[in-house]
C-alpha cells in the first residue's frame, strides 16, 4: 500500500498536502481507500465556496460496488475542485495522490492539522 511520506492522513482515509506558508491544503483519498472502493465510476465533484466541518461529508463517490462518502479531514472552505473527476472518475483509482485529488480546502484553524496522522502512523492503522 502506497503511503507517501510528505502527506498527513485522517482516520477516514483522506490525505492532506500542506502548501508551504499557506492555509490552503489539497485533499484526496488514500491508496488504501481507492483499493477498498473498487472501480470508481462516478464522483460528485464538490461545490466551491461550501464550508465543511471536520468529519462532515464533502462529497460522495460511486463504485461498481456501492456509494461511499468522502469526509473533510479538517474544517475549512472548499476553494478549488478537481473538475476532471466528472469526466474521468477513474483518476481516483489510477492516481489517488496525483491527478485524482478531490479539492483544495482553505483551513479555518491551521492548528487543526496537528490532529492528523503522519505517514508512519497511518500505515500502522491500515496494516493493523
Amino acid at each position, binding site marked *: 500500500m502506497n503511503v507517501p511520506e510528505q502527506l498527513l492522513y485522517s482516520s477516514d482515509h483522506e490525505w492532506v498536502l500542506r502548501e508551504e506558508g499557506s492555509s490552503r491544503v489539497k485533499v484526496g483519498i488514500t491508496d488504501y481507500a481507492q483499493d477498498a472502493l473498487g472501480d470508481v*465510476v462516478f464522483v460528485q465533484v464538490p461545490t466551491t465556496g461550501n464550508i465543511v466541518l471536520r468529519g462532515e461529508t464533502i462529497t460522495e463517490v*460511486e463504485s461498481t460496488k456501492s456509494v461511499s462518502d468522502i469526509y473533510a479531514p479538517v474544517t475549512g472552505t472548499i476553494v478549488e475542485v478537481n473538475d476532471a473527476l466528472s469526466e474521468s472518475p477513474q483518476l481516483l483509482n489510477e492516481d489517488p495522490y496525483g491527478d485524482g485529488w478531490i479539492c483544495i480546502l482553505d483551513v479555518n484553524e491551521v492548528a487543526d492539522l496537528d490532529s492528523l496522522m503522519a505517514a508512519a502512523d497511518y500505515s500502522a492503522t491500515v496494516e493493523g
Partner: protein
Amino acid sequence: MPTAERSSLDDVHRALGAKMVPFGGWEMPLSYESGTVDEHLACRRDAVVFDVSHLGTVRIEGDNSFELLQQTLTNDLDKVGPGRAQYTHLLDADDGSVLDDIIVWWHPHTGGDDDVFDVMPNASNTDRVRQAIGGVETTHMRAVLAVQGPRAIARLSAIFPQASDVKRFRVVEATWHGVGCTVAGTGYTGEPGVEIAVPADAAAALWEAITSCGIKPAGLGARDTLRLEAALPLYGNELGPGITPLQAGLEWVVGWDKGAFRGRKALERERDVGVSRHLVGISTEGRRPPRSGSEVVVDGQLVGVVTSGNYSPVLEHGIALALVKPEVGMNTVVDVDVRGVTLSGRIVETPFV
C-alpha cells in the same frame, strides 16, 4: 457465523491478488488486480473466466427424477431432452413467488436411458431446493468455471477442443487430459461461452490452462455488471419473495402446457387478473448509478422501485431494472430518485447492450 465456504480455487485467486468477498455463504473473488470495469470490457470484447463454484449442484437421478422435476419446477422438460440445459424456477406453492431460479443440466444418455439431472440453484438457496426435490448435493466435489465472451470459444479450442464445440444450451460429457468434465453451453453474461464442471482436484490445472490461452480471470463484480447489461435477473433483486415469474417478464419459464407444478394455481390466478407490476429496463443520463431501492417517479407519482442499478461500462451511463406499475410502458420518461438526487431516465428495451 459459520466459516465461509471456499472454492477449490481459493489459493489460485489469492495468489492472483483477488479481492475476496463473502457471497451466499462463500468467500469468492470480487475482482482481480485490473478491476471490475476492465474485466467487464474484456468479457464484452474478448474472453474471461469466472470461478462460479459457489453455485449449488444437487444431483437427481433414477426412475422418477423426470416426473419429480416436472411437478416441482416451472419449466417444461419436454421442450428439451437429455444433453440439454434449461432455465427454470422453483415457486412458493401459495403465492407463486420465485423461491429460486435454477439451471438444470440434463446429462446426455450414455449407453442406457437413465436420467441424470444436475440442478443448480443459487448458493444460498441450495438447502431450500434440496428440501423441495431431494437429491444429493455434489457442490463440493467439483468446481465450475464459466468461460465467456465473443472470443471465449476460439481461445478455449486451443486447450479443450471438446468443450469449445458445445453449442448453446447443450450439455456434453467431455474429457480433459483424462479428467471427466461436464460442459454446458450456458452463462450469465449475455455473451457466448460455456460452463465447465470439473472435479475439484483438477480445477486448478484447468484454470491454469484456460488462463494461459489469453482468457482473463474475472470476478463477481464484473459478473454482476455484465448480467445487468444483459438484463438477466438476479435472485434477491429481480426475483424473490413476492415476485412471480410473470411480474419478472419470464413467462417463457412457465410450462403452461404441462400438468400441475408447484405454484401453478397461484400463477394462473395472476395470469387471469393481470400482473400488478412488471419488470422494465431504465436508461439514465450521466454516470451516477441508480441503485437497488431507488424510487421510480412519473409526473410526480411514485410508480415503482429499482431492483438493480449500476453504471454500464459499455454504455458509459446508468442502467437499471425496476418493478413498475403495468401501465408504465416503453419509452416512458421517468425520474429515478437516488438518495435525494434525481436522475432523468427512460424506459428502454432490454437487454441494454
